[in-house]
C-alpha cells in the first residue's frame, strides 16, 4: 500500500511510504527501516565538557545528528543528558567544546537555537494564566516568523483544538505534553529535542507521540530523543548514543547495537561440552564460545547456525536446538550502565 501521509510540518513535501515501509509501520509501532542517514549535519557536539564545582557532569562528549534521523540519547540518571541538552540550547556554557548547529558555531550566532531548534526541556512549561492557544501565541511572538494559521494547525495535530481556550493550569499532564510537542513545531525547526516526551501519558497518548516522532524524521526533520523508555527509543530511533558519568559509552544504529548484544544459543544434549566447544570454535565466523548452565553461548552472526550445526555433525554430535537470541536495548543499556561496567568505556572498547 502506498499512502502519502500529510506533512506534519508546513513546507515539507509529503513523503509516500514504500509498500514495505507502509506495511511494516502498520504492523508494528517500530519505525520502518531507514537507510543510514547521510544528510547534512544538523547538530554537532564536539568535545563538550562541563564541570560544576567538584564534579564533571559532561566529559569530552561528541556526537552528531544528521538531517532526517532520530537519535536516541540514553543514560542513567545523572549521566549528563540534561546538561548536554542545556549546552546545545545555549542554556549552559560549556567549559570546553563546541556546539555547531547547521554548521555554525553556537558561540558565533546565538540565534541559531531560536531559528533551528524546537525543544521540550524536562516537563513542558507554559504560563498558567494563559490558555493553550495564547501560550502558543506568546511563543510564536517571541520567535517571530510563524505563519498565520500555524497555531490552529498544530493544535489540531496534537488534538488540543477543542481545549485550546482553556487555561494551561487546568490541563492534564497529557495535554501539557501535547501542547509542548506543538510548541516545538511552531517554527518548523530542523532539529526537535524531546526530553521524556511520553512522561505521564496513557498508552494511547504514548503511541500518538511515538507515531509523530518518525513522521517528523520522514519529513526531513531531525529528532534528538532523550528518554528512559528504552523500548520506545528502540522503536523510533535510527541511532542511539548512550552516556554514563558524562562520557559517551557507545553510539551506533539500533540494529547494529542490538546485533552486538546478540548470540546463538546451542544445546547439544548428552554430548561432552568441551568437545562441542571445540567443534563450534572450528567455525571461522565464531568469535567466542562459552558454556553456561548446560548451554553453549556462541557469539557469531545470526546466519552462522547452519555452519555450527554442520561442524557439530562432523564431530559426531547432534544439536538439539540452535537459536539466535537478540538483546533488547534495555539489556544493552543495563549492561553498559551498571556500576561495574568499565570506568572508561571508550578506552575499554578500544583495547
Amino acid at each position, binding site marked *: 500500500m502506498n499512502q502519502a501521509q500529510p506533512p506534519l510540518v508546513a513546507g515539507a513535501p509529503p513523503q509516500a511510504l514504500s509498500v514495505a515501509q507502509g506495511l511494516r509501520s502498520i504492523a508494528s509501532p517500530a519505525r520502518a527501516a531507514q537507510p543510514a542517514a547521510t544528510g547534512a549535519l544538523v547538530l554537532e557536539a564536539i568535545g563538550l565538557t562541563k564541570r560544576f564545582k567538584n564534579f564533571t557532569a559532561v566529559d569530552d562528549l561528541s556526537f552528531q545528528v544528521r538531517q532526517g534521523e532520530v537519535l536516541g540519547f540514553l543514560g542513567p540518571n545523572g549521566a549528563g543528558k540534561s546538561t548536554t541538552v542545556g549546552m546545545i540550547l545555549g542554556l549552559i556554557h560549556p567549559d570546553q567544546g563546541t556546539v555547531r548547529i547547521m554548521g555554525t558555531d553556537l558561540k558565533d550566532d546565538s540565534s541559531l537555537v531560536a531559528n533551528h531548534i524546537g525543544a521540550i526541556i524536562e516537563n513542558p512549561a507554559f*504560563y498558567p494564566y494563559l490558555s493553550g492557544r495564547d501560550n502558543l501565541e506568546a511563543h510564536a511572538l517571541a520567535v517571530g516568523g510563524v505563519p498565520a494559521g500555524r497555531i490552529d494547525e498544530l493544535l489540531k495535530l496534537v488534538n488540543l483544538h477543542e481545549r485550546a481556550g482553556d487555561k494551561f493550569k487546568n490541563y492534564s499532564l497529557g495535554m501539557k505534553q501535547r501542547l509542548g510537542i506543538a510548541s516545538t513545531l511552531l517554527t518548523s525547526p530542523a532539529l526537535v529535542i524531546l526530553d521524556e516526551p511520553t512522561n505521564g501519558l496513557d498508552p494511547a497518548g504514548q503511541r500518538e507521540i511515538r507515531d509523530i516522532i518518525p513522521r517528523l524524521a520522514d519529513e526531513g526533520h531531525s529528532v534528538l530523543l532523550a528518554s528512559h523508555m528504552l523500548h520506545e527509543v528502540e522503536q523510533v530511533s535510527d541511532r542511539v548514543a548512550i552516556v554514563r558519568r558524562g562520557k559517551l559509552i557507545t553510539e551506533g544504529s539500533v540494529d547494529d547495537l542490538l546485533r552486538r548484544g546478540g548470540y546463538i544459543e546451542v544445546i547439544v544434549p548428552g554430548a561432552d561440552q568441551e568437545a562441542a566447544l571445540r567443534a563450534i570454535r572450528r567455525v571461522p565466523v565464531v568469535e567466542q564460545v562459552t558454556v553456561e548452565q548446560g548451554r553453549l553461548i556462541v557469539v557469531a552472526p545470526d546466519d552462522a547456525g547452519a555452519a555450527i550445526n554442520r561442524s557439530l555433525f562432523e564431530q559426531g554430535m547432534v544439536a538439539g536446538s540452535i537459536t539466535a537470541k537478540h538483546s533488547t536495548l534495555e539489556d544493552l543499556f543495563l549492561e553498559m550502565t551498571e556500576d561495574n561496567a568499565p570506568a572508561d568505556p571508550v578506552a575499554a572498547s578500544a583495547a
Partner: protein
Amino acid sequence: MGTLLRSELFRIRKRPQSWLMLVLAAVFVALIYGGMTVGTFFANAQNATDLRETLAFDNLRDFGLSFNSLFGGIMLAIFAAGAFGNEYSWNTIRPLLARARSRTSLVTAKLVMVFLYGLVFTVSLAVLTVVMSFVSTLVANGNWNFSGEELGKVAAYIVGLFVTNLPYLALAVLVGMWTKSNAAGIGVAIGISFIEPVLFMTLRAVNDVFDTIEKGGLNWNVQEVLYRWSNSQQNWISVGVLLLYTVIFVALTYRIFLRRDVTSG
C-alpha cells in the same frame, strides 16, 4: 528584541495581575479621597476644615501623590520582581531563553517592559489622583481652587515619581533574577525603601559623618527630587544619583544573567 517585546507585551496584557494592581491602586485612591470628602460633611467644623485643606488641590503633592509614591512603589516592586522571578517559578525561563535571539535581547525586553509598565502605572495612578483631588476639592470646597502654576508643579512631581521609582524597579528585577525568587526581589526593594531612612536616622545620631553618607543613598535623593524640588543644582545631582543606581542595577542584571548557567526554571 522586537519579537520578545511583543511577546512580553502580549503576556502582560493577558495577565490579570497587570490590571488588578492598577485597579487596586485606583480603588485605594478613590476610597481615600471619597471617604475624606464624605467626612467633610459629617465632621465637626474644625475637622471638616482640616479635611478640606488636606483634600485641596494645592496639597496634592504632599497628600495624594505621596500615597502614590508609597503604594505605587510597592505594587511596582511586586511587578518588577516577577519579571524574572515568575519565569523561574513557572519553569518558563529555559523555554523562553531557548526562543530568544540572545540573552541580551531577553534581558533588554524584560527591563523595557518593567520600565514601561512602571511609567504607565505611575502616570495612570497619578492622573487618577489628580482627578480625584479636583473632584474632592470641588465637592468639599465648592470650587476648583488651583492655579496653572500648581498644575505644572504636579506634572513635574509625576515625572519625579517615575524617576524615583526607577532604581527600586531595577533593584527588584536584579534581586528577583539573581535569587530566582519573586519574594526576595519584592522584599529587598521594599525593605530598602523603608529601612534606609530609619537606618540613617539612627546612624546620624551616632555620628555626623552619616549625614554626608546618606546623601549618596537612595532615600535622601528621592526626598530631594520629590519634596525639595526647586530646579536647583542639588536637585539635578540627585536625579543623576538615582539614575546612576538604576544603571548599576541594570548592568549587574545583564552581567549576572549573561554569565549564568540556567540549569533549572
